[in-house]
């Protein structure tokens, strides 16, 4: 990956300093999201992975450096124009009380709408399609409050999908879900990547999930990127120990052959 200005990926950032008020999270960070990849950002808690995602989605303005989207500084686009190229599912989404599923999904059309064009036939077709793709069509007339966590996350994904953006950025989409719904959401992400051609960037907590689903892995520690590349090349026992401070063995996932980490047995020895 180049660190100069000649980066031709659709989404990249170089020389980024990311900070909340005075608290600096990352300094001189450079990252490129390979086009058509399913990029997953991993790292320990508070390593700055969500902060990086926020900067890539222009939710956080870098204190220094610039994120580029399709060759131009992301800050130079009108807000709606960014939202037509890049969809974001943040951690902190709130569904207003009593809002219906189709109503929430239809909110994703906002960047394509205007004062005189508030609900075109195209809007309706895209929303219908987004609900099909995420398997929430049958829930369309239900209220979001009534749904389970997994269903709700599918609805939010449908909303972002209705934005029809080539790039999708997802901040910890599997948090608070049980294992079955986590896999469900990740399968859906893989489907969006593989069958619908979206470039995905997701922050994930679980390294094994990341190694299984990512085509490109970005590993962060203390605000810096310590490794990136294909999971097979990146996930090694040495790296995991360095980044997470956890001794592990890396074995091939019996299902997918992707690297899988198994923590070293540290239980007290029984006689």
């Amino acid at each position, binding site marked *: 990956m180049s660190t100069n200005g000649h980066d031709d990926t659709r989404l990249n950032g170089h020389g980024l300093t990311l900070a909340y008020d005075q608290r600096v999270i990352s300094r001189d960070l450079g990252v490129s999201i390979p086009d058509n990849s399913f990029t997953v950002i991993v790292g320990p808690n508070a390593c700055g992975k969500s902060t990086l995602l926020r900067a890539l989605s222009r939710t956080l303005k870098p204190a220094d450096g610039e994120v580029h989207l399709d060759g131009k500084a992301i800050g130079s686009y009108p807000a709606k124009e960014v939202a037509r190229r890049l969809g974001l*599912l943040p951690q902190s989404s709130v569904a207003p009380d009593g809002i219906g599923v189709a109503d929430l999904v*239809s909110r994703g059309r*906002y960047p394509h709408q205007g004062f005189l064009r508030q609900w*075109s036939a195209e809007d309706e077709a895209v929303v219908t399609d987004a609900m099909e*793709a995420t398997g929430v069509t049958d829930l369309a007339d239900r209220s979001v409050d009534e749904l389970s966590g997994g269903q709700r996350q599918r609805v939010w994904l449908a909303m972002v999908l209705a934005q029809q953006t080539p790039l999708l950025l997802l901040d910890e989409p599997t948090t608070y879900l049980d294992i079955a719904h986590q896999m469900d959401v990740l399968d859906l992400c893989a*489907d969006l990547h593989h069958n619908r051609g979206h470039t995905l960037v997701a922050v994930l907590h679980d390294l094994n999930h990341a190694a299984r689903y990512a085509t490109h892995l970005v590993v962060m520690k203390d605000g810096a990127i310590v490794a990136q590349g294909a999971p097979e090349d990146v996930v090694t026992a040495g790296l995991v120990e360095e980044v997470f401070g956890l001794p592990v063995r890396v074995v091939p996932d019996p299902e997918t052959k992707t690297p899988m980490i198994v923590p070293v047995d540290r239980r007290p020895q029984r006689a």
Partner: protein
Amino acid sequence: MSDTLSKRPGPARSHAPHGTVPVRPLRGRLSFLARPRTLAVVLVLVLVSAFTLALSVSVGDYEVPLSAVPAAIFGYGEHLDVFFVQDTRLPRALTALGVGAALGVAGAVFQSLSRNALGSPDIIGFTSGAATGAVAAILAFGAGRLGVSLGAIAGGLITAAVVYLLAMKNGVQGYRLVLVGIGISAMLSSVRDYLMTRAELTDALGAQIWMIGSLNGRGWAEVAAVWIAFVLLGGVLFAYARRLRFMELGDDTARGLGVNTRSTQIVAFAAASALTGAAIAVAGPIGFVALAAPQLARRLTRSGGTTLVGAAAMGATLLVVADLVALRALAPTQLPVGVVTAVIGGTYLIWLLYTEWRGGRA
């Protein structure tokens, strides 16, 4: 997933959101999403408030027959009818409508921005700030009605600015707005109490009555003031209505969808604060309308989010009904309307919350 995918591109049922009807004039070059239920609710509220307005213009020590009211409004009919209708009762009722609509819209905007049903100007301190400004004007400067209004507006806006700045950190957080507002309210109320203890008895009594909120003796000047404020500031807020609905999804989500959250926040906050200030300047700090009207409207329209038009219509209806009750409940004694709104609005809100809790929602 694969089974839903394999179904595409089959004949999918098209999905406009539940309870909406697409309207696409000019062969789809324009497109809107109508909400029949919201339209019906607003229509009913307009009819109810119009009827109540006619009724409150008609009744009193001097009775104007309902049938004579429409003519008298436009200056025709018996001399005394016209006098009572045009010079005293109509301006009062129109003030009630305007103040109610203004409070309803402002309350809805604050609730959207704070994502909190408690984020109304009553709770987050503006009402308290305006009241303190007005009381200071009465007690410290012996101000007349205009001075009191200016004091209320100044107090309200200063408080709004202070609350906004204190609650702001990477954008305004809803709960922080409510908590800061409650703190500021408490401080302001102690300032008022202090001013009261220093005041002459008659001044203190006047200030106390003003603080309940009243429409007694309001004339055409007040009608003009509140309706001009409503048209200008309400106009700005209606233009921001769509963006405000997105603010309810959370700052990051709204921004992800292409909403300029910062400018929306500042413009809506300023306009809603000024509108609240105008309403309070005209009628005193009438409680509960701003808190209850948006919530009631939302539940009646089942719109899944705030509706500004619904909140305006509900606020106007609430206040005009409350004013009729204030006029007639203990006639010939007139109650301040603030007493009635507190009873009506508060009771209805508690009942609503109670039924929702019982129903397992909210």
